[in-house]
């Protein structure tokens, strides 16, 4: 009796393992986890990378969270910041327009709000797809 129970349990474990692999495989069929989004983001920041006069060192990163009075989703902004860092490596990105050269990804309302709050302090170089370069002026 015990021997038969052992055989049954052994068979159950083998079947469970095998069907777990099968189920795992079935779940990956037609899987779409947004792999193209990262490539799209990199393509969006490529003009900024080419336009920047420095290829190594620290630059600033300006997002919606830097624009006064603009509502934003924190994790979206955090992800965009991390993606920008990944795309622009080996440049190091610090949050905010804290360096001489800064990359910004801002919607039109956010850009308007940020520009109003920082008038005269930066030379603004607009690029495509709501991407900007902000160059800190020596004598604002």
């Amino acid at each position, binding site marked *: 009796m015990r021997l038969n129970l052992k055989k049954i349990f052994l068979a159950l474990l083998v079947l469970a393992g095998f069907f777990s692999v099968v189920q795992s495989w079935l*779940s990956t069929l037609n899987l779409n986890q947004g792999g193209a989004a990262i490539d799209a983001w990199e393509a969006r920041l490529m003009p900024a990378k080419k336009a920047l006069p420095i290829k190594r060192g620290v630059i600033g990163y300006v997002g919606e969270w830097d624009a006064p009075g603009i509502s934003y989703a924190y994790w979206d902004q955090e992800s965009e910041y991390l*993606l920008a860092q990944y795309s622009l490596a080996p440049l190091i990105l610090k949050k905010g327009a804290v360096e001489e050269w800064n990359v910004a990804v801002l919607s039109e309302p956010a850009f308007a709000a940020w520009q109003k709050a920082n008038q005269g302090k930066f030379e603004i170089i607009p690029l495509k797809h709501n991407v900007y370069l902000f160059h800190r002026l020596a004598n604002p």
Partner: protein
Amino acid sequence: MILTIFFFFLIPILNGSLIAHLLWPERKGSALLLKFSLGIGMGLGINSILYFLALNIAPKQINVLAVEVVLFVTLGIIVFLRERNQKWERRRFLSLSRIQWGLIIVGLIASAMLVLIFVDQSIAQPQAGIDAWSIWNRAARFISRDPENWRATLSPDLYWHDHADYPLLVPLNVAWGWQMIGSENVRVPMMVGAFFVLASIGMMFATVALTRTIGQASLATLVLMGTPLFVWAGAGQVADVPVMYFIFASSALMFLALTQQNSAFLILSGFMAGLAGWTKNEGLLLIVACVVALIVVNLKELFRSLKFFLAGLAIPLTMILYFKSIAPPSDLFTGSSALVQILDISRYWMIFGALGRQLLTFGYWPFSIFIGLAFYALLMQIHWETYFDKGLQALASTILLQSLGYFLIFLLTPHELIWQLNTSLYRLILQLYPSELFLFFSVVSEPEKVFKPT
């Protein structure tokens, strides 16, 4: 392109395998699989160390591939000269029983499906998840795009989520692969991930086959492969599966060393523990856990066993110490009052509660694999006499000490505990999972005994 990438990495992997064979010249067919599995980790580890040295000594001027080829030719000649008059044991496949054949066939089919899962996952998400591109491949880009200024990847100006303090075994191999093919092809980090998945499967089968039976090995490997989290994490291009592999390798080699009284395994165990520390910070815990385990379990021969373990550990530990001297501090050791957190009982409840939930849901099995294995152990016979085996005691001690270390990390983390538990606990359990499976299948009765005619 995939074949090209594969052949570039094959040279360091063969070097690792040849070194394993020189240290442990066992001539059984079953030992070959273990050596190749070890060779993957050792080879990629050595490759990363060579590339790291090249970056520090003369970036863009030292051809690491050339060094690997010279090493391959040298090792090949040494092995050839030593082996030309030796006889290899032949495995008689016809001597396998029906249950063994059945389990092997199921395992092979599962392996083929695992390859499909890995490929599908990689196609769906070529850049993998956020940890892959923001931490590991980000570091690889810093190294490959500006090798003369590679230390920028360690800058304290980097955002904490970029983890500039993380060791570099995986990013160095990815950066080297990109350098070899001349582009930042996503297939390189995919290939590195695939190697560690393959090596983990090979190591599970080989170590259990060497110490128990073919049937037990097939079963253990099937349980590992049947854990969806294992292959998903492997395809995720993060360092959790590589460090899982090194933890398993080091623990299993220490088990073999103490069981078979073979010092070569201790050297390899030390080397693998060092590579674990060179892969992720959790590996540093493993080094301490292994040393303490040796002290606790092997006190009578402590000096001898430590001597060989530390001999293997020396080179990767030197890299780690140098790296830590130039890297920023870990975000886990900033701010926070340790005493206050240690005395906070609610933290203990939170950690144990999260652990309890993980025990029920770990690995994305449709049922609790830990409870299932517990029932399996109750029904099948457990070899209680193995309790006295030093190798088993060392293996169990290492797992226990590593777990204790993880517990302390959660207790003392400066980050919000719930967030830390939700994002890391399942990965830390995964890191110990193959070692736990190896321990489990070392004490539970083999399937062959169930079908043995009475």
